[in-house]
């Protein structure tokens, strides 16, 4: 994503002025002083807080967006993109139920380091996300479908975005032949699977992105029903058989994992690395009924939040795995697991590589050995 220059970030286009939103007075949404001289010196006066200047009106969607879009804003107010409740609830699981936001130092740290990933209406439909510096994406034109590169993967970039677009091809340390996701190659953008309804929510304050709501959660079977396919021996055995595998086990490629992220600007103190690990499904549900899934190591560590200087610790760090349920976005029909070239039987490529693919205690972050072994006990296959 090419960054916007300082002028481009705030330059409005004629298309915007001709649009419906362009008919609204600037001050109706942004406040400020509209009667200042066009000089550098007057810039501060035009954008002064005392003139009630509002840089990001949609942060208050109930005020600025809801008069015309209340059907969406009322739902979005409780969506995970807006509330970041998914993150906060995951924190609670490891902190013995303590709310991160109840500690002033932790809350300040969260707002500084993590809240930039909170999304407002504008960060998907007008500007680039503030986590990458913001700036008007299309000269202030409001667009219904967010840009995959400049909106969606501006936040979901280092794993999903890179995998989906095949950006690890040729990268040192990655296997040869890594490809972009087949859906990307066919031209599908994020919104093909992840609809506006999923993004905006239904008004229910869900606590996790992996919710059991088939109306929201895209399923491979939505487009690729396999239950009726008895001609494919892989599907017959591993989808309709006694032990079910998640689709990604056969159809994903190697993906990025990270160890040990620390707040306060320190970042990843462990390392990020390509890997491909199959674990037990530790969160089976109606929609996620597979017995085995792919798991990705997330960059959490027992001391991740220490630099905020708060009083809440991850006292129950092992209450959730660090190798987490994963749905890598790098799908291909033929992968190292399914490619039978040069093999003597159809499952050889996978079944002869159990040591490589199956998650075992040897795969944990050795810097936090005891905690990691305990946290991932429900996921280990061997």
């Amino acid at each position, binding site marked *: 994503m090419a960054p916007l220059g*300082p002028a481009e970030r705030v*330059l*409005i286009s004629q298309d915007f002025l001709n649009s419906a939103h362009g008919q*609204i*007075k600037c001050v109706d949404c942004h406040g400020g002083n509209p009667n200042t001289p066009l000089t550098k010196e007057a*810039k501060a006066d035009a954008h002064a807080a005392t003139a009630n200047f509002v840089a990001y009106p949609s942060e208050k969607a109930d005020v600025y967006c809801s008069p015309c879009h209340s059907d969406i804003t009322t739902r979005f107010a409780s969506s995970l993109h807006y509330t970041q409740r998914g993150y906060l609830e995951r924190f609670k699981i490891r902190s013995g139920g303590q709310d991160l936001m109840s500690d002033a130092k932790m809350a300040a740290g969260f707002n500084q380091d993590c809240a930039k990933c909170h999304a407002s209406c504008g960060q998907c439909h007008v500007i680039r996300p503030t986590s*990458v510096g913001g700036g008007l994406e299309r000269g202030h034109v409001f667009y219904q479908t967010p840009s995959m590169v400049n909106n969606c993967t501006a936040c979901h970039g*280092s794993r999903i975005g890179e995998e989906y677009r095949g950006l690890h091809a040729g990268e040192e340390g990655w296997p040869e032949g890594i490809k972009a996701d087949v859906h990307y190659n066919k031209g599908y953008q994020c919104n093909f699977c992840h609809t506006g309804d999923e993004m905006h929510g239904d008004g229910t304050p869900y606590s996790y992105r992996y919710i059991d709501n088939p109306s929201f959660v895209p399923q491979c079977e939505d487009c690729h029903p396999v239950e009726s396919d008895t001609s494919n021996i892989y599907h017959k055995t591993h989808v309709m058989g006694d032990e079910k595998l998640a689709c990604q086990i056969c159809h994903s490629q190697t993906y990025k994992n990270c160890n040990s992220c620390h707040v306060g600007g320190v970042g990843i103190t462990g390392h990020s690395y390509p890997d491909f690990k199959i674990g037990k499904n530790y969160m089976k549900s109606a929609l996620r009924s597979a017995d085995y899934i792919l798991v990705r190591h997330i960059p959490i560590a027992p001391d991740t939040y220490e630099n905020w200087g708060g009083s809440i610790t991850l006292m129950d760090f092992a209450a959730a795995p660090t190798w987490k349920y994963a749905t890598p976005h790098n799908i291909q029909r033929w992968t190292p697991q399914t490619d039978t070239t040069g093999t003597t039987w159809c499952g050889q490529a996978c079944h002869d590589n159990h040591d490589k693919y199956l998650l075992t205690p040897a795969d944990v972050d050795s810097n936090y050995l005891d905690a990691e072994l305990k946290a991932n006990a429900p996921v280990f296959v061997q």
Partner: protein
Amino acid sequence: MKNKILVVIWTFLLLGLMACQEKKSDISQKQGLYEVANQSSCVACHTDKALLTEVAEPLENTGGDTGEG
């Protein structure tokens, strides 16, 4: 006669009140939205790339060009 005068006065008062009453309208009419935007200094500046290039300042920390998710 007195009653007729009172009826006429009340009728005029009622008509006057009805004329002055704010119409229930959608938000766009109520708050002056969808009027042609005034050519304020906001528009004058933010459509002038040369001027913006002169006055806009680069961000100190853009946070990179891709997110961590």
